[in-house]
């Protein structure tokens, strides 16, 4: 089998001692970078370009790829423990991970995150190896109309993320869309909602909003409830072990989300964040106990963690086979490869098989390293929850502020962070769910841009969304996912009435 031969060849490269060292260094650095909110893989990789310049291209990419997927792996830790997403791709992990930690199940949540990430990472590397060259066709089959339909499908998850009140969920989603379009409109060059401020011209960074609405709002909320509130359970990391029934329970979500995540990652521009949300909302809908999602359901940790790691690997498909970066992080990787004298693209598999197969093989090794590295660390890291509450809260506050300031060196962003913290607090006090806002923030802008682009191409003809088979099927699925629960409810009511 051809793929097997190639993989053997790749392992020959990845298993060279120096490359093993690079994989280890990469995933180790990545885990740390991922754990610290705000310090994302993009800036870390940009700083590494001068270091990798002198390296063998395969070694350089092995190291940098390790930092990238290591960061996605490590990002779940702060999502779960502090409700402060370490990287954008792990926001969805906090929905159920943080409630688990509050219940004293931090150890279990972290372990599930580690196992799911490992499976997601490994499954997607197998996909990458077997079908990457074919997948370049999938990646380009999505034009503006198809992206619009995909975003509509993604947004239907607002319904399932809205727990109690659908109206409040929809209001939160609209606020999210509005935040997402702040800045210069790409289609016309017009400023929207900037109030003349140049700091807002490029829009609002996703992590500023996420850290504010989740982490900072949580800090405020705990402060409000004051010392009289009940103390967090002491020493309550809980067991790392999963029972057999728990393993069985997450097996389905993990494997489904790995596949879904990988294909989301393959689409340029979609990536780990959207992948993890799609995985989360898919599992919430499929689960029989879907209503316990958001309250500490283990499937709600497993699904986004498998999906975001798979998506991260998936994003290497357009990068390596087409030479087009699908995200900011892969854009930096592309830049680094060019500087090292490797031009990713259709010819790369033939011209530089060492880079392609070396990196693929190194990802298997890297994922094993990550698991081995992270599992023993869990009890140590989770000890952070033992800190006295005032100390823990100040720590979260500091993490958030350093994270946001470190991204842009901008005091303005700190004020925004504070503003979103207050918004998040208000939302909690009045029972507005935060997840729909975050989802709409991620999808809103892409949805709008894709729609207008599609209409500009079609000359204003709305049929373009229905004429294209992929777009049509996605829209039908979106309609079904909105309609079926209604039908089910009506049938149940009819059945109840008949009795």
């Amino acid at each position, binding site marked *: 089998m051809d793929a097997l031969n190639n993989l053997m060849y790749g392992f020959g490269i990845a298993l060279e001692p120096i490359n093993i060292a690079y994989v280890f260094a990469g995933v180790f650095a990545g885990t740390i970078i991922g754990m610290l909110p705000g310090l994302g893989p993009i800036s870390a990789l940009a700083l590494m370009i001068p270091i990798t310049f002198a390296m063998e291209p395969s070694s350089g990419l092995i190291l940098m790829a390790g930092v990238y997927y290591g960061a996605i792996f490590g990002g779940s830790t702060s999502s779960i423990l502090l409700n402060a997403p370490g990287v954008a791709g792990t926001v969805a992990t906090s929905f159920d991970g943080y409630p688990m930690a509050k219940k004293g199940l931090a150890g279990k949540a972290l372990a599930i995150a580690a196992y799911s990430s490992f499976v997601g990472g490994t499954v997607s590397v197998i996909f990458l190896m077997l079908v990457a060259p074919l997948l370049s066709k999938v990646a380009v089959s999505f034009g503006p109309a198809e992206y619009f339909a995909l975003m509509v499908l993604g947004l239907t998850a607002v319904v399932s993320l809205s727990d109690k009140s659908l109206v409040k969920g929809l209001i939160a989603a609209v606020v999210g869309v509005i935040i997402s379009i702040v800045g210069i409109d790409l289609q016309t*060059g017009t400023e929207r909602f900037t109030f003349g401020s140049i700091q807002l011209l490029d829009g609002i960074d996703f992590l500023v909003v996420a850290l504010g609405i989740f982490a900072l709002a949580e800090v405020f909320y705990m402060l409000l409830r004051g010392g009289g509130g009940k103390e967090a359970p002491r020493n309550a990391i809980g067991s790392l072990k999963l029972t057999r029934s728990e393993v069985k329970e997450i097996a389905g979500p993990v494997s489904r989300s790995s596949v879904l995540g990988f294909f989301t990652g393959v689409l340029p521009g979609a990536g780990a964040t959207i992948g993890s949300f799609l995985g989360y909302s898919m599992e919430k809908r499929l689960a029989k106990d879907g209503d316990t999602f958001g309250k500490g359901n283990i499937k709600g940790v497993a699904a986004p963690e498998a999906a975001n790691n798979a998506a991260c690997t998936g994003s290497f498909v357009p990068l390596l086979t087409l030479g*087009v*970066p699908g995200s900011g992080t892969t854009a930096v990787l592309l830049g680094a490869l060019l500087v090292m*004298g490797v031009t990713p693209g259709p*010819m790369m598999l033939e011209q530089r098989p060492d880079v392609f197969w070396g990196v693929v093989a190194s990802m298997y090794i890297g994922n094993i390293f990550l698991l081995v590295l992270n599992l023993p660390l869990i009890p140590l890291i989770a000890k952070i929850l033992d800190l006295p509450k005032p100390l823990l809260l100040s720590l979260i506050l500091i993490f958030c502020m350093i994270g946001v300031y470190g991204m842009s060196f901008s005091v303005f962003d700190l004020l925004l962070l504070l503003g979103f913290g207050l918004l998040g607090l208000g939302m909690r006090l009045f029972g507005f769910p935060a997840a729909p806002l975050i989802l709409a923030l991620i999808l809103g802008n892409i949805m709008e841009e894709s729609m207008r*682009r599609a209409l*500009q191409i079609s000359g204003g003809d709305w049929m373009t969304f229905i004429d294209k088979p992929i777009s049509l099927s996605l829209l039908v699925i979106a309609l079904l996912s909105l309609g079926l629960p209604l039908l089910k409810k009506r049938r149940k009511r009819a059945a109840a009435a008949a009795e």
Partner: protein
Amino acid sequence: MTSLSLKRLAVIALPMAALAGMTTSVQAQEWTPSKSIEFVAPANPGGGWDTLVRTVSRVIQQEGLADKNFAAINVPGGGGAVAWAQIARDSGNPHKLFATSPPIILVPLAGASRYDHTDFTPVARLITDYSIVLVSADSEYETINDLFDALKENPRLSVGGGSAPGSMDHISIAGLASAAGLEASSVNYIPFSGGGDAMTNLMGGHIEAVITGAGESVGQLGEGSQIRALGVSAPERLGGGLADVPTYQEQGVDYTFDIWRGVMGTPDMPEEAVTYYQDLFAEMLETDGWQEARDQLGWIDAYQNSEEFGVFLDEQQEQFSGVLSDLGLLRQ
């Protein structure tokens, strides 16, 4: 706020400074930097300005051309406007430079920045790239004229680019269209969030053609590729992977377009400092390290010293405002 962030950046820059070679001998009367030079890329990591800043800093360090370190700093926002506003406040500071290219003229013309090139000190133009028109490999168009004939028939044919209307890609194709005898505003220009994004859409058959940077597209062309080039905006044929691509002029359309990149400094930068930097960059362009990096990135040397660069910038502004007003996008 600014001084606080500078301190922080200096802390980051220190370890790099320690690495920098200290080989250049300097005559006493000449101005030389007394501390690390902040070299600003007015954008996020990964783009054209960022690549220029990091490549230049690295070559200067590796070749030991300067006593002090060039610290690459990203100040993203507003297509450059955030960084320009910061630098404009730093009048006379000889230790701050930034990478620049046509947006320093286009963004202000579109009304999105209070500051334009006249607010800063030109230091040197370094390189240029050209724009290139791409179609999918199985497209019916063989020459740039085929494409424009089709556009005359059907003005709805979509041409994608990697930036907003009124920015570089759009100006380049609009100028080309008007040189070919069409209305500049008749091109159905579809803005994507980057050249790569536009090229994937071309490969998927969602749009008819793409206008983007030649350097950016070079990895996409060649054997086995799903796209091919109709023409390039250079005055004569380029080398390497683009040797087969005819210029517009060869095809009877008298039009060239430079995507130049250079370096500017703070407002009213002292003359001695400008002289120091322009000579430093001239020296850098001669080194092997630079030439290797330049070839890998598909850049073409296009050095101009401070004075020539200043004149060139004024000419560019005049040319761009013409195209923008044809497009109805002139806001200033």
